[in-house]
């Protein structure tokens, strides 16, 4: 059996505010690029599942051929192999196109891929759609916001997933696409041995020859892209001769702002 983790390379969240609109449009982002934090949970779960099930783990990412930092991070954590899908195969496309490319890359890993894991969203695009699209394209079951994989047996998988106000236990037949919640595990740090292994790894790049996508007009496209206005925060110190006066002033201010 193979377990696939879908990995995206995103700007370091600490540096996200530095990304300019032009950089975001062109994809030529100058900030430090790292593994999407949500995808670290997927990578960790893939490593644990591979250990539990005697399976092999594969990380798949889509990006420019030189964007391998996130995949190398996954390899350094303990993922056994990695594949990069050249983003050129889905040029001018939308999330649906990206999902098609990733689904094809997953199929290329063989029929023994039974579980695909993904983070709930990326910290840059924030769409949360890719894994949904991948499940659609593959025609597999989809489980979202999974907090625990309880059992994989007899061609079925049993998981716990959370929803607003509760938890539920769900069982579906394999193969399956799963988006994991952060409660599912504690991602490990890469090991030094893993770092050396990742650094030596040759990561195959799948291009248009391997992943042919018929050009179709994207169903969604960016009409505009802008950075949100910087919020201005006003600080008001409530004055008063006594704590009671200050508290009364605070209550008045909160009422005036309709906070309470």
């Amino acid at each position, binding site marked *: 059996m193979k377990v696939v983790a879908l990995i995206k390379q995103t700007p370091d969240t600490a540096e996200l505010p530095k990304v300019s609109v032009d950089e975001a449009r062109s994809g030529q982002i100058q900030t430090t690029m790292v593994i999407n934090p949500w995808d670290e949970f997927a990578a960790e779960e893939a490593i644990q599942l591979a250990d539990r099930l005697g399976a092999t783990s594969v990380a798949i990412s889509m990006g420019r051929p030189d964007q391998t930092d996130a995949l*190398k991070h996954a390899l350094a954590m303990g993922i056994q192999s990695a594949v990069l899908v050249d983003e050129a195969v889905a040029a001018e496309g939308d999330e649906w196109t990206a999902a098609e490319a990733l689904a094809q890359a997953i199929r290329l890993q063989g029929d023994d891929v039974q579980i695909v894991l993904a983070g709930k969203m990326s910290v840059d695009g924030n769409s949360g759609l890719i894994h949904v699209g991948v499940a659609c394209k593959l025609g597999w079951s989809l489980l979202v916001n999974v907090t625990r994989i309880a059992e994989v047996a007899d061609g079925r998988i049993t998981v716990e997933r959370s929803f607003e106000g509760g938890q539920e236990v769900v069982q579906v037949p394999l193969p399956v696409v799963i988006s994991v919640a952060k409660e599912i595990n504690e991602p490990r740090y890469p090991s*030094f*041995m893993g770092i050396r292994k990742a*650094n030596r790894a040759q990561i195959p790049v799948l291009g248009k020859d391997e992943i042919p996508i018929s050009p179709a007009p994207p169903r969604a496209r960016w009409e505009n892209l802008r950075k949100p206005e910087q919020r201005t925060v006003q600080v008001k110190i409530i004055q008063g001769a006594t704590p009671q006066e200050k508290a009364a002033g605070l209550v008045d201010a909160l009422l005036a702002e309709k906070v309470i």
Partner: protein
Amino acid sequence: MTSPLAFLFNEEHEMVRRLARDFAAKEIAPKIKELDRQQRFDPELLPKMAAQGFLGICIPARYGGAGMDYISLGIVSEELEYVDTSARVVMSVHVGLNSLGVFQWGTEEQKQRFLVPQAQGERIACFCLTEPNAGSDVQAMRATARREGDVYVLNGEKVWISLADVADHFLVFAKTDPQADPPYRGISAFMVTRDMAGVTTGSYHGKLGVRAGNTGWVKLDNVEVPVENRIGQEGEGFKIAMSCLDNGRYTVAAGALGLIRACLDASIRYAQERETFGVPIARHQLVKRMISLMVQRRDIGQLLVYKVGWMKNMGLPHSREVALAKWFCTDASFDSASDAIQIHGAYGYSDEYDVERYLRNSKGAVIYEGTREIQQLMQAEYELGLRKRPRLRCELPAYDPAEWTGET
């Protein structure tokens, strides 16, 4: 895009940096302010650093280490001190001053017995050179080691010992020949273990900085140390101590570089938020000057530190170069922390912001592991031809990736 620092760091180094940065941000940063206030050493820190392989980072895999190179040791030291000095001190003392000393001078049997558990983090190690009346003047030490049959009997007191109260292994320097002339030729080195009768330790409180670090004293009262625990030959202790300091100073310099970066980042953040006279203070020329000086110190420090890392990798003697890096970077980190407080104004004067801790932490490194003044004297003496770095019977091994990793 090629990094402008690609001539210093390869891709593996960048991954090590990312790892150390994440570790420090997640494991140290959330609790350091409170630990520093309480003057408390985090008991979880050493097991976590051990589990990650930091405690044997540049020790070959055959001795239980991670088999990374000396530049990686510098990077981890830099990134740990970016968050707090106390964690970097562990690298300096456990790895730099003790483990690399055993790696350089120990017999194969000693490496198996001491280095392997140290590299794996099962035993914590420290370095005992300084005494109440012997700091810069090392050869004035009074600790003695008297040979009696198969043991040496050690007596003396060592002070300002980092990790004194948590260490299992103590690399102790004592005089086997108190009458030697010159006196340094009478010094020998011994590995003392905590389970030996007559070893007592205690911690200091009330330090100016590095308050989350463990610093204390070690008392040796008729401690019987087996002959096979002597590191190097009799009378070789001074050379061993100085070569250990070459390793310790490297980590101190790298850590100070991290501190400069922390001061710079904090200053940039604050200077862009804080407004006076209707503009962010970053627009004021004299604030820009302080920031530019921090940039200058960072970039110069980086070149000095990693030049030494490269020399270590190549197996080149580097006593002068590492002393220069240590002198420059520690002075520069103190100046940067002072400037960072100035930029923060009155807010920087309280522990609401980290910069006051940076200043308190930075001062120690200007003193320990060779004062600024000792480093300055060394530079002049090397240049004037008054000092030469002797060839050592055992030099620090050069980095050999295939041999160190045991991977082909």
